[in-house]
């Protein structure tokens, strides 16, 4: 066991959080419906330092070697100056692989810090409001309220005050990890990756803290499979009313806006809506709030001028939001220390004075760090400003667009800088001739996710995003959808129901659609993948922008998938867990399967739980759009738990993947803990972090990555049926590697038996021994 010097101190648990009385654990009678016993169980590694879990990381990295795709050949971090690392080392001695690993660690730490800063803000604010003894109670159906915290910290958090101590630990670890990025520290790529895994684990931890805190303190749905269907889409916003738009990830200002509106019975007179995760979390707080859409809707919606007041909090907000808002005289209120936008801090100012100054244009915007005051100022400002802005709630007229488009010089750079190489110039040229259809096409299904790069490049400053938005305007009224409000964690009873079918393969997999909304070919692809797996009996879970993109699609019956499928954590369930921080409940569900179904103790027992998940829980994440460092941290954290993730092609720009080598049989050997034997395994899951080039490839890969060594023959047949069906659908044939996943003839799907037997004969296939208790760990 690798133990860092810090570990001993870390395990010296002190403080009232770690009061040893009345600790609930969750082994023993887990199969029963009774509450877990109240006793302490200490696993081997509570509060682990990075080096405590290094041995597990090295096992993963041995099987799934890091694959580096440098974005940049150089290191630009120190004042020796830039070092070219192509075929040589830098002046400090670092090589290209190690530098890539360092950058990946940095990215993960940025993501972790974003979630941690958010979580710390929430916890401190809620403690100030409700007290540190405020109880963590997720209701009757969720006894294992914090599976990640229990596993990592070794204890159950009981109060908001306990969550603050989890934050202390995570922040301490994050500081150690960041220090390793300094010039002249870590010098091995695998050790950097181990640290990135640890950063990902800290990210898991703080996301769980953030969501639990907001669920219990704001009374958000507590694992409610019947969470309400709420309104989603540009077209659901009534622009005739005063409109307040929240952008970002912190629910607090939005919640206080809703409170102010509710207390004054203004619900019918004002629109409160949101973009990105703040939107999802505000609708968890109040189903009267509306979701405009994922982060890609920002520039488009701001340019439309519909929002009278724009309230920004933190993460994934356009940094030019103030500049853009001023063009339409929308008022901007910044609300957190993470994003002050150069605005004067008016937290202590009289609210009515702030309102007047915003309306009169005396100030460009306001920084208000008190959410309650934000609620009052935002509502009052919107009510007074809306009548004055009526003429500004519009986009350029068609004649203006044609005039603007006629300025185009045909240089073509707009499409060269477009992340998806969309035919921007062609669309502008057509518009110059009065045909807006190509611009409209870009607006639909988020083919253009309004990053604005084309405008930055245009030598004539043509406002292409505004033109795209205008061209899509006539379809805006159709952008009315439904999304299920984020329900929070899976209930323990649901885990009891699906644990065995998942581990044994009868439910072919749990597929999680998460990530950001810069898609290679629009958001519809996310919905189509979700639909494909729902129809095939998988459990589909989702959060954040992925959840919104799934909602922005209607099937052939004119219904969204949320209207068609229930929100239960079960086969054919479409489970919106909530915002990005709610991603923690996805790993949490896998952890709970190990605990509830297999009776594995959680507390301080990371490696055993992760090993269980890797080898037995057929789960796969899909981050089809890649944008933020938070997504890098989330994926890396998920990977350390043993859950593979498929990225879209943009995900290759995260610079690092974890790829397995199916052709190297030694990589797949397993320890059978039951018999003590080392046996030949199978490439299941074959990769840990994979980037697919298009939806078709990704869909087939997801089905493959849900295969696990513990599948029963019947379960394996189901999984292989899906893998083969999808491969035939998109590739036209039975997959050529099918022999790797047939252990005995009982695994062969009956429908394909003849064809598969032929392949097996050609490949001189021999039956394999089935492991009883497969593991990467030693007995």
């Amino acid at each position, binding site marked *: 066991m690798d133990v860092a010097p810090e570990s001993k101190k870390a395990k010296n648990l002190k403080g009232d959080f770690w009061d040893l009385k009345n600790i609930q654990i969750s082994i023993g009678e887990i199969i029963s419906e009774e509450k877990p016993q109240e006793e302490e169980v200490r696993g081997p590694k509570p509060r682990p330092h990075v080096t405590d879990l290094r041995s597990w990381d090295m096992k993963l990295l041995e099987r799934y070697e890091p*694959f*580096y*795709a*440098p*974005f*940049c*050949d*150089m290191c630009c971090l120190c004042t020796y100056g830039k070092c*070219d*690392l*192509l*075929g040589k080392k830098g002046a400090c001695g670092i090589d*290209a*692989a190690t530098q890539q690993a360092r950058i990946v660690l940095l990215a993960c730490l940025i993501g972790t810090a974003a979630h941690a800063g958010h979580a710390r803000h929430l916890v401190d604010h809620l403690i100030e409001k409700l007290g540190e003894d405020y109880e963590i109670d997720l209701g009757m159906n969720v006894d294992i309220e914090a599976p990640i915290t229990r596993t990592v910290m070794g204890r159950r958090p009981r109060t908001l005050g306990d969550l603050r101590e989890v934050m202390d630990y995570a922040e301490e670890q994050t500081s150690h990890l960041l220090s390793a990025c300094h010039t002249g520290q870590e010098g091995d790529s695998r050790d950097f990756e181990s640290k990135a895994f640890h950063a990902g684990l800290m990210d898991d931890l703080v996301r769980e803290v953030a969501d639990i805190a907001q669920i219990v303190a704001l009374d958000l749905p507590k694992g409610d499979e019947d969470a309400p269907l709420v309104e989603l889409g540009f077209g659901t916003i009534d622009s005739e009313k005063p409109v307040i738009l929240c952008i970002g990830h912190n629910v607090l200002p939005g919640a206080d806006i809703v409170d102010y509106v509710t207390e004054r019975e203004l619900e019918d007179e004002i629109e409160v809506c949101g973009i990105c995760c703040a939107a999802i979390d505000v609708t968890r707080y109040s189903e009267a709030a509306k979701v405009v859409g994922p982060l890609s809707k920002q520039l488009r919606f701001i340019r439309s001028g519909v929002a009278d007041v724009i309230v920004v909090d933190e993460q994934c907000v356009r940094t030019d939001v103030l500049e853009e808002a001023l063009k339409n005289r929308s008022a901007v209120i910044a609300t957190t220390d993470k994003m002050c936008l150069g605005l004067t801090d008016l937290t202590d100012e009289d609210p009515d004075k702030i309102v007047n100054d915003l309306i009169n244009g005396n100030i460009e915007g306001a920084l208000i760090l008190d959410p309650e005051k934000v609620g009052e100022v935002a509502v009052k400002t919107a009510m007074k400003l809306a009548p004055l802005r009526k003429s500004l709630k519009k986009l350029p007229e068609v004649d203006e667009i044609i005039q603007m488009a006629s300025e185009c010089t*045909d*240089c*073509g750079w707009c499409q*060269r*800088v477009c*992340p998806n*190489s969309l035919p921007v*110039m062609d669309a502008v040229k057509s518009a110059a001739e009065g045909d807006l259809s190509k611009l409209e096409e870009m607006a639909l299904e988020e083919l253009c996710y309004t990053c604005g790069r084309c405008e930055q490049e245009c030598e004539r400053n043509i406002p292409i995003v505004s033109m795209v938005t205008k061209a899509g305007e006539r379809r805006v009224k159709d952008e009315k959808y439904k999304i299920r409000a984020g329900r929070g964690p899976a209930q323990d009873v649901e885990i009891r129901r699906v644990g065995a079918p998942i581990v044994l393969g009868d439910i072919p997999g749990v597929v999680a659609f998460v990530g950001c909304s810069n898609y*290679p070919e629009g958001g519809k692809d996310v919905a189509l993948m979700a639909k494909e797996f729902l129809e095939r009996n998988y459990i589909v879970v989702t959060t954040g922008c992925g959840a919104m993109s799934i909602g922005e699609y209607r099937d052939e019956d004119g219904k969204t998938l949320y209207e068609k499928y229930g929100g239960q954590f079960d086969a054919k369930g479409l489970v919106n867990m909530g915002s990005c921080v709610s991603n923690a409940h996805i790993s949490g569900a896998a952890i709970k399967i190990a605990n509830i179904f297999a009776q594995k103790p959680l507390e301080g027992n990371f490696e055993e739980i992760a090993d269980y998940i890797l080898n037995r829980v057929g789960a796969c994440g899909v981050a089809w759009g890649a944008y933020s460092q938070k997504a890098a941290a989330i994926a890396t954290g998920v990977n350390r738990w043993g859950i593979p993730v498929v990225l879209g*092609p*943009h995900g*290759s*720009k995260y*610079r690092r*993947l974890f*790829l397995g*080598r199916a*052709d190297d049989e030694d990589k797949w050997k397993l320890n059978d803990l039951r018999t003590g034997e080392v046996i030949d395994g199978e490439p299941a899951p074959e990769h840990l972090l*994979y*980037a*697919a*080039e*298009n939806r*078709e*490839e990704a869909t*087939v*890969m997801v089905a493959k990555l849900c295969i696990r060594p513990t599948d029963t023959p019947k379960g394996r047949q189901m999984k292989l049926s899906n893998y083969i069906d999808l491969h035939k659908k*998109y*590739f*036209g*044939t039975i997959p*050529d590697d099918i022999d790797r996943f047939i252990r005995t003839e009982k695994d062969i799907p009956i429908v394909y038996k003849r064809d598969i037997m032929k392949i097996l004969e050609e490949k001189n296939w021999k039956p394999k021994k089935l492991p009883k208790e497969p593991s990467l760990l030693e007995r």
Partner: protein
Amino acid sequence: MIGVNDRIIPWQPTVIAGPKQAMLVTPETAVMMIKKAKRPLMVVGPLAKRQPVLEHTVKIIRHWDLPVVSTADTYRALKEAGVESEPHGIVEITNLLKDPNWEGLRGEGQHDLVIFIGCIYYIASQGLSTLKHFAPHIRTLTICKTFHSNADASFPNMDDDEWFRYLEKMYTD
């Protein structure tokens, strides 16, 4: 629309990674590279599924008897065009090419030249960066209509008509 100076700026200009840039090649030079290679490999991506790119691609494969990897879902289109390929994700084949001990598609040893066509630009650029850094045993050539700075050798940025003339020369000269 593509000016002379724009031909050798990467199609997506922000993929520039460092001082080293691909050598600009004509079809004649590309053919020389194939002739010189002992174990060339063709990697065909989904942008080559459309005609007439597919037809040109098939003719190049047949003319040089190239072993073929199809990325994404390109396998089906190639098979329907009468070409057998081995399907791999672009990151999977890049990972295999990175290993000097990989036996290659025909089991004859690692390839020494890889020719890319039709892969999505930005993921191809990332894969080429991987090979540039971690596969010094392999030369990379791209015959797309876009300049790939991370390759060892690349066609320039050009329009469809010029590109098709380039591709035709790959199997007629």
